[in-house]
């Protein structure tokens, strides 16, 4: 399968994106932002559709809309968006806008499918460079901001008392999450961003209580899922994102089981 350019590209981009998703996912879970990440992916869908309508690169539309979304969430405060109602209003509005822009443009049905469900076919070299560049950027920011971000994510009271700029960290993280979502949408699609950004991180918590351990585990699970998805998709023609989602879901349930068995051994549950 590596005979094809697009498969090689998909593996390179997919691997890096998976590592990024594992790393950022741990913080998304710790900060209770998984539904906001999901909302961003829908805003991204509207953005990509808008870009097609306006004759721009879809990635530009994705980034533009999700970054604006991040600023909006940052302005109003994350807490507002933890409410189900706020999330469902924005989600449906974003989907509606996406549909509107698509109907106004002359986009093909296949584009809709790609942006909603992801696709690896047709990733050309330029796309790969863009994705790799953005992914490395996110990873670099995560590495540099690691100490502050983990303090603020796992112990907000402590971080505030230590004098960390918690407001800045919060906004910065939302913006970073917007970039990460925009990139991830390209692989798994807007509807399945959960699969790479939150499920591996959620599963990782069953296996370890160390923060770095969680990041490592989540990244490995995401990576394994992407490799499995790409290979299985290549040989069976079923959608790659289906396999990725299935793999991650399985890892989650295995984790749950692992935790339960551990608790039973210790005589807890």
């Amino acid at each position, binding site marked *: 399968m590596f005979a094809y350019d697009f498969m090689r590209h998909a593996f390179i981009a997919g691997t890096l994106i998976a590592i990024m998703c594992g790393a950022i996912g741990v913080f998304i879970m710790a900060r209770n932002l998984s539904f906001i990440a999901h909302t961003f992916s829908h805003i991204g869908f509207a953005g990509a559709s808008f870009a097609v309508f306006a004759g721009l690169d879809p990635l530009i539309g994705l980034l533009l809309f999700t970054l604006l979304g991040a600023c909006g969430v940052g302005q109003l405060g994350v807490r507002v968006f933890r409410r189900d109602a706020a999330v469902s209003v924005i989600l449906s509005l974003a989907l509606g806008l996406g549909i509107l822009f698509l109907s106004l443009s002359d986009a093909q049905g296949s584009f809709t499918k790609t942006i909603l469900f992801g696709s690896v076919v047709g990733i050309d070299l330029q796309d790969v460079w863009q994705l790799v560049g953005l992914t490395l950027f996110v990873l670099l920011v995560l590495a540099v901001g690691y100490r*502050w971000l983990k*303090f603020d994510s*796992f112990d907000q*009271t402590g971080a505030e*008392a230590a004098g*960390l700029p918690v407001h800045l960290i919060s906004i910065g993280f939302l913006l970073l999450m917007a970039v990460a979502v925009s990139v991830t949408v390209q692989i798994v699609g807007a509807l399945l961003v959960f699969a790479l950004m939150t499920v591996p991180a959620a599963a990782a*918590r069953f296996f370890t*209580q*160390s923060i770095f351990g969680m990041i490592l585990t989540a990244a490995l699970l995401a990576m394994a899922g992407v490799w499995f998805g790409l290979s299985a998709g290549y040989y069976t023609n079923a959608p790659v994102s289906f396999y990725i989602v299935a793999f991650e879901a399985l890892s989650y349930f295995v984790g749950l089981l692992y935790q339960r068995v551990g608790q039973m051994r210790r005589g807890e549950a």
Partner: protein
Amino acid sequence: MLHRIQMNHLSVGFNGEEVLRDLSFYVPVGKMFAIIGPNGAGKSTLLKVLLGLIRPQAGEMVIEGDGKPVIGYVPQSRPIDEETPIAAKDFITLGLTSHLLPWLTRAERSKLKEIMEFTDTEMLAKKPIGRLSGGERQRVFLAQALIREPDLLLLDESTANLDPGAQEEMMRLVFRICEKRGVTVIFISHDLAQVATYADQVLLLARGKYVQGGAADLLSDQQLLAEYYQHEPVDAAQKATLESAQRQAMFH
């Protein structure tokens, strides 16, 4: 090292309601300083002012030392996310923010080891903090504050939920930090016997106002204490504090 901690005519209010009123006092450096007073007196608020989390509306606060003073803080309450259980050791490590390298340096690793030994938290290293007992948790919180190598340590009712043995252990630990490392300690407590034992200086607050300050023997003035712990309108919480203070007075 700190040189001076002083408050001059400090006032703090929330939505027009004054919580601290024209408060002036100084804290002797390198000593144990207790803040006491009934519920709602403004004790926790005062610590938050010292931390810089709350800006006073009037007055000035001076905390001077060699360089920028580092403050360690153990808050009265702290939400712990049971969903994302992180190991006690990681929780302590969070306090290390003097630089941005993603990994721990050799010096930081030995510091971590030393602090965990000192606070007797080695056995808890791998346990998720959500599963620790109240006393174990307080030691972990203290360790996180200590790993920052503070010049000033602020403790907000750190022994409130501990059994008598654990309270004693905690206070001895804090006392050693003060004595051996020259850290200035400001602690809030409703346990007047404990305050009498450990504090060099005491500040009594009531409804945001300075009532009395001085050496710990002001606590032997039963009349004063009774007056200020009772003159507050007595609601259920205050009554409980009062009763426990009286019980303690009986036992000691």
